[in-house]
C-alpha cells in the first residue's frame, strides 16, 4: 500500500485538478471546439495540395540540392561530399553559358510573339462573330498535340539547305537563298520558337479570352460614347482589366519557355547525345542538364545546373511579374509614379503647414 501511495499525488491535489478540468470541460468544450474548428479547418482543407506538393515538389527539390552537393555518378551513386564545387564548375563551364544564351534567345523568340499573338486572337474572338465555339475550340487544337509530335513534324518542316523542306520551299519562292535551319544558330532558334508558339498561342488566347469576357460591357459603352476608337478601347479598357490574368499567362509562359526540352531534343536526330546541334547551337539548359545526367552520367553537376536554372526561372519570373505590372497600369496608386506620389505628399504637408 505504501508503494501505491508513494506513486500517486496527494489526494487534495487530485481533487482540485479534477474539479478544474471538469469546470473547463463543461464550460468551454463547445467554444474550444469551435475555436479549434475556426483555426485548424482551413489548414486541413488546403493541406492536400501541400502534402502532394511536399512529396512531388518540395522533396525532389531538396533532394536535388543534396545530390548537387555531392560527387554523384548516375549509375554507381554518391561518391563524396564536395560542397558547392559542382555549382562553381557549372558557372565556369562554357557550355552552361552557351545553353543559357540559347534558352533565353528561344524564350524571347517564343514568349513575346506568343503573347502578342494570343492577345490579338483573344481580342478577335471577343467580338461578335459567327460559330464562336468552333473558333474557340479551333485555337486550342494545336495544344492537344504532344510536344514530341510537334517536334517531329516541325523538324521535317525545317531542314538544311539542299534537303527538301516546306520552310525552304517558301523561302525560295519568296526569292531568298535557302536557310540552314538546323546548322545556323538563329534560324534553329526561330524554328524551335515556332514549335512553341504553334502549340501555346491558342491556349494562352483562350485564357486571355475568358478574362476579356469578364470585363463589364458598360465600360466599353462609356468609352465609346467618350469617343474612344476600338484600338484605344483595347489599350485603355481591355488591357488594364485583364491585368491579373495577363500576369498569370506571362509567368506560366516564362516557366515553360525556360524549360524547353522535347523540341530541341528531337529537332536534330543526328546528335543523339543531347548536344542540340553539332555546335550546340540550340542546346537549351534543360537539354544540357539532360546530357550531363543521362549521357555523361554526372548527376551531381546535372543537379547543380537544375538548381541554377530554378533560381534563374524564379528571378526571370519575378522580373516579368514586375514588368507586366508596370506595363499595364492598374487602378489606384499604381497609376502615379513614385515622384508624383512624393509630390502629392509634399503638397499635402505644405497645405497643412499653411493651415496651421
Amino acid at each position, binding site marked *: 500500500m505504501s508503494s501505491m501511495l508513494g506513486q500517486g499525488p496527494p489526494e487534495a491535489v487530485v481533487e482540485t485538478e479534477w474539479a478544474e478540468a471538469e469546470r473547463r470541460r463543461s464550460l468551454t468544450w463547445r467554444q474550444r471546439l469551435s475555436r479549434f474548428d475556426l483555426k485548424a479547418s482551413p489548414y486541413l482543407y488546403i493541406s492536400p495540395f501541400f502534402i502532394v*506538393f511536399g512529396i*512531388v*515538389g*518540395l522533396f*525532389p*527539390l531538396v533532394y*536535388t540540392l543534396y545530390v548537387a552537393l555531392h560527387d554523384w555518378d*548516375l*549509375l*554507381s*551513386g554518391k561518391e563524396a561530399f564536395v560542397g558547392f564545387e559542382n555549382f562553381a564548375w557549372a558557372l565556369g*563551364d*562554357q*557550355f552552361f553559358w552557351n545553353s543559357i544564351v540559347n534558352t533565353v534567345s528561344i524564350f524571347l523568340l517564343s514568349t513575346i510573339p506568343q503573347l502578342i499573338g494570343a492577345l490579338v486572337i483573344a481580342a478577335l474572338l471577343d467580338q461578335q462573330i459567327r460559330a464562336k465555339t468552333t473558333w474557340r475550340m479551333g485555337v486550342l487544337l494545336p495544344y492537344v498535340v504532344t510536344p514530341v509530335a510537334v517536334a517531329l513534324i516541325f523538324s*521535317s518542316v525545317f*531542314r*538544311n539547305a*539542299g*534537303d*527538301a523542306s516546306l520552310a525552304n520551299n517558301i523561302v525560295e519562292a519568296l526569292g531568298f537563298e535557302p536557310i540552314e535551319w*538546323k*546548322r545556323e544558330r538563329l534560324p534553329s532558334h526561330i524554328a524551335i520558337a515556332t514549335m512553341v508558339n504553334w502549340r501555346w498561342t491558342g491556349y494562352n488566347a483562350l485564357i486571355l479570352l475568358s478574362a476579356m469576357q469578364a470585363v463589364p460591357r458598360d465600360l466599353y459603352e462609356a468609352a465609346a460614347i467618350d469617343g474612344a476608337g476600338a484600338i484605344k478601347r483595347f489599350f485603355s479598357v481591355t488591357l488594364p482589366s485583364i491585368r491579373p490574368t495577363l*500576369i498569370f499567362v506571362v*509567368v*506560366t509562359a516564362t*516557366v*515553360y519557355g525556360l*524549360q524547353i*526540352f522535347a523540341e530541341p531534343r528531337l529537332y*536534330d*536526330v*543526328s*546528335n*543523339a*547525345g543531347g*548536344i542540340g546541334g*553539332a*555546335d*550546340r547551337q540550340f542546346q537549351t539548359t*534543360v537539354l544540357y542538364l539532360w*546530357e550531363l545526367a*543521362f*549521357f*555523361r*552520367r*554526372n*548527376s551531381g*553537376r546535372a543537379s547543380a545546373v*537544375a538548381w541554377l*536554372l*530554378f533560381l534563374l*526561372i*524564379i528571378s526571370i*519570373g*519575378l522580373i516579368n*511579374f514586375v514588368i507586366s505590372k508596370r506595363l499595364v497600369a492598374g487602378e489606384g496608386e499604381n497609376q502615379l509614379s513614385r515622384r508624383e506620389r512624393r509630390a502629392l505628399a509634399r503638397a499635402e504637408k505644405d497645405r497643412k503647414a499653411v493651415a496651421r
Partner: protein
Amino acid sequence: MKWSRTRSAKFLAVGAAAALLLAACGGDNEEPGGGDDTSAPEQNDEPVTITITTFGTFGYEELYEEYMELHPNVTIEATNIDTGGNARTDTFTKIAAGSGLTDIVALEEGWLGAIMEVSDAFEDLRDYGIEDRASDWLDWKYQQATDPDGRVIGYGTDIGPEGICYRADLLREAGIGSTREEVAAALEGDWAHFFDVGRQYREATGKAWFDHSGFVWNGIVNQMEEGYYTADGELNVENNAELREAFDVLADAVADGLSAAQAAWDWNGGQSFVDGTFATFVCPGWMLGVIEGNAEAGAEAAGISLDDVEWDFADVFPGGAANWGGSFLAISATSQVKEQAAALADWLTQPEQQLKQFEAAGTFPSTIAAAQELAANPTPRPFFNDAPVGQILASRAEGVRAQFKGPDDSVIQENVFGPALQALDQGTADADAAWAQAIQLLNELVVNN
C-alpha cells in the same frame, strides 16, 4: 494596403508553380517494375509473368507467342523502346533509381562498358548454367558479357558484322562494276583504297561516295585492335597515333568531296537513299532494315519508283572484318522471377530462335550454329538485288574480334567525335582543326567530368 497579402500569395504561387514544373522534369521514377508475382522459382507450372524490355527492331514478337504456347503458365509482358539510345537512358535511369528494371533487359554493346561498372545490378548467369552453353556463342561475344570479376551478365543475342551496301546502278555508270563479286573485288583493301575508288567515282559522276563521316569513322574505330580505350581500360585518344592517322585519311577523303554531309538518321527523310546523293554505305546486319525502311519512305516522298533504285550488299569491308553493335539479354537483380526469366532469355538466345529473329529483323545471330546455318542455306533478300545477306554476313563475321569498350565510349563517339566530324563534313574545319576540336571536347566532356 490589402494587396500586400495577395502579393505574397502570388509570390508563393509563382515559386510553387516554378518548383513543381522544375521538379516534374527532374525525377522520373514511374513503373513499379515487373516482378510483383512472387511465385516460388522451384514450382515451375505456377502462373508467372515475365517482363522484358528490348529496343529497335528486335524481332521477338512471334517468339514470345511461341514461348507462351510452349509454357501455358507463362505470361510475357514486353516493352520495346524505339532506339538503342533511348533504351540506354531508360536502363541507366532505372539502375540509378534502384527499381523499375524489367525482369529481362536488353543491353547494347556500345553502352555495355558503362553497365560493367555497376554489373551487380544484373544477375550472374553462371548461377543459371550459362557456362554449359558458353561454346554456343562466338568466343568474343561471350567474353564481352563477362565483367572484370568473371561474372557473366548477358545472353548474347546478335552481332553486327559489317559489309558494304552500294548502289549497283550508280557504280555501273561510273565504270566500277555492279555485281557483288565485281564490287567486292574493286573495294578489297584498306580504307585509303576504299577512298581512292571513291575519288574515281567522284571523278566520273561528280557525286559523293558515302553518306557522312560519322558512320565511316565508327567502322574504322571499331575495327582497330584497341579503340578509344586500351585493352586495360585506359583512355587513349589524344596521343593515339593510329587513331590520328586514320582520322587524317578520312579527312583527306572528305576534303576531296567524298562525303555527302548527310544528317544521320534523317537522310533528307530517306530521299538521299533513292536520289543518288551517295553510292555506298557501311552496313552492319541490322542496318539493312534501316536502309530498306528509309528508302521506301524516301521513294514515296521524292516520287521515285523503288524499281529504279538498285541497292546491293557486297561481301567486303575496307581494312578487314569489323563489328558494330549487337546486344545481350540480362536478368535484373531486382527481378522476383529470376529463374523463369533466365529460362526465357536462355531460350530466346538458342540458335533456332536466333534464326527466327534474323528472319524477322535481320539481326545477325551470335551463336556459331545459327551463323553456320545461314551460311549454308542462303535466302535472297529482294530489296538488295536478291543478295544472300545471311551468307554474306556470316562471311563478314569471320575474324571479327571484340574490342574493349570503356565506360565513356558512347559519349566519345556521339558528343566528342560527332561534332568534329560534322565540322569536317561541312567544310568548316580541316583535319587539324577538327582533331583539335575533338580533343578539346574530350577534355571537357570526358577527362574533366
